[in-house]
């Protein structure tokens, strides 16, 4: 989560320096929850991250280089400059690539898990990330119900970070608690303080284990606060200042450092070493990508089909 924070900070500064095309979306305040997802998963599992999941992606196996290449539009990145920023992944390695339409990734994870069932692959789990805003979509409902009907090993992690862009939870849902939605789908619900690394690690491992052991879909709802704008273009002046001083408004990275020191896992100098290593790793990746060529529109094949022989290549300019 430290590496994710440092990567995010670097991306934000590159954005402010005009080095990134399009938006930059940070996971600040959500790293404890996100990293817990990545750490609870194994190879062959499926992870469909969302925009604030840099930590989870890295823990699941994404490289810093892939992240930077996608943000900076390098044709050498996994998206080959065709898509950018948070729209990145390697589907064949279980890291699904989010589209912008919220809730749409959940049923995709369901389908991957169904495929595992067809192929006789057992013991795999799929996690989809969502924010509280995404729970208002029809796609969320359809997919969670589908997973429940098929009793799929799906873990849906909802980060309730108080705001969907600028919209507060009071304009998003009217239920007492989002975790209560689990009852309606006939699945197990869990809630957790999303800025408490220790609690998140334990809870995610428990939810993932339950799914892996055949107990069906699990809904995890984490309470936390987004400690940044929706994107770096957003000043987020709509955030209620009282939330920032609330327990769940504490920075998860500081909470994690306190926990680590208190439990004697390591000392301050070691934390400082980790930080320096992370900074070095990120700077090194940025330096590599800045030397890479931009995509060449004349070498792009402009073909949306895998079956090239069925591509028309027609753009209305005549024969």
């Amino acid at each position, binding site marked *: 989560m430290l590496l994710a924070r440092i990567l995010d900070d670097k991306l934000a500064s590159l954005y402010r320096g005009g080095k990134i095309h399009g938006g930059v979306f940070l996971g600040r305040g959500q790293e404890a929850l996100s990293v817990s997802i990545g750490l609870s998963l194994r190879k062959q599992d*499926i992870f469909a991250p969302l925009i604030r999941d840099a930590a989870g992606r890295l823990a699941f196996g994404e490289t810093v280089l892939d992240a930077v290449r996608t943000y900076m539009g390098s044709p050498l990145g*996994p*998206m*080959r400059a*065709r*898509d950018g920023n948070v*729209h990145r*992944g*390697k*589907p*064949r390695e279980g890291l*699904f*690539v989010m*589209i912008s*339409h919220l809730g*749409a*990734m*959940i*049923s*995709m*994870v*369901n*389908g*991957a*898990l*169904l*495929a*595992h069932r*067809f*192929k006789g692959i057992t013991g795999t789990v799929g996690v989809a990330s969502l924010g509280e805003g995404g729970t208002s979509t*029809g*796609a969320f409902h*359809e*997919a969670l*119900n*589908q997973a429940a*009907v098929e009793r799929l090993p799906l873990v849906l992690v909802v980060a309730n970070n108080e705001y969907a862009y600028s919209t507060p939870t009071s304009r998003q849902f009217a239920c007492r608690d989002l975790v209560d939605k689990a009852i309606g789908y006939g699945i197990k619900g869990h809630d957790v303080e999303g800025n408490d690394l220790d609690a998140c690690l334990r809870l995610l491992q428990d939810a993932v284990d339950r799914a892996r052991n055949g107990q069906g879909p699990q809904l995890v709802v984490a309470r936390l606060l987004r400690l940044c704008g929706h994107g770096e273009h957003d000043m987020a002046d709509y955030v209620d200042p009282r939330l920032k001083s609330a327990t769940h408004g504490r920075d998860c990275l500081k909470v994690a450092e306190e926990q680590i020191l208190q439990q004697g896992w390591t000392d301050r100098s070691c934390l400082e070493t980790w930080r320096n290593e992370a900074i070095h790793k990120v700077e090194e990746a940025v330096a590599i990508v800045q030397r890479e060529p931009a995509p060449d529109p004349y070498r792009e094949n402009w*073909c*949306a*089909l*895998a*079956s090239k*022989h*069925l*591509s*028309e290549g*027609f753009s*209305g300019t*005549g*024969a």
Partner: protein
Amino acid sequence: MSITYLEAIREAQAKALADDPRVYIYGQDVGAFGGAFKATKNLAQEFPGRVIDAPISEDAIVGSAVGAAIEGMRPIIEMQFADFSTTGFNQIVNQAATLFWRTNVPCPITIRLPSGGTSGTGPFHSQSLEAIYAHYPGLVVMTPATVEDAYSMLLEAVVIDDPVIFCEHKLLYYHLKAEKLPTEALPTGKARIARPGRDMTLVAYSAMVHEALAVAEELALEGSEVEVVDLRSIKPLDTDTVMASVARTGRLLCVGESWPWGGVTAEVIARVSSEGFGLLDVPPQRLNAKDTPVPYHPSLWAAHRPTARSIAAAARKLLRM
């Protein structure tokens, strides 16, 4: 022995299931019930665990197919009616259609859309949506008009490494018959000269091919030879075959059952006009359904869509130009 268009679709799915363990069928009522139109009759019994009833969730049905395709499966999705595919529209056009281009991972899914009007089915069980799907990059759109094509193109759809929108016309399900299933077929992307003629080119697809053939028959009695081109797939669109036909006849009428704004007929005419303007002796014409929702009552419905009668009138006018 004879086989209907619907039976051909059922047989193609049975063959696909038998040939390839990666194929499964998912949709509403497709399991033990055999589908609303019986296109999956007995398949759940013949292929246990591979023909699965879905909840009424078109978005999740398509989304899950994309996820399964990434993991190496080849799902066939039955939308109960083409009209309901709009509830799964986002997953079709934004998820399935963009997957390969974004990630280099193919998305071999087949989405069957029982399409087109039948008498008495009204605005929400009668739509022809091929044009709206053809508009999006990353999709193949098939519109078979014959029993043979229904069979062979559905089999090809399952093999193609891209999402295929398979528009099967409900009006052809029970009445259209062939002696036997084909053993060979034209490849997807090739149109077919359904009837040769030298006086005008009548381009059609799906159920309209049969209206067009009836018109050709009728006009032959009046001494005019109408060449009928069956597009077979509208994306890719076989512009070459259309253009070659227009080069022979100099006259073009294009007919479609979907709505008039944009769409297949407009696309065909735009291409012929821009690439083959000099081949045309007279301005090209098109005929579509009226620009309203599809009406319920049989007399309104019959007047809403192009029929042999209205096509013949348009053809006679074109021949007199």
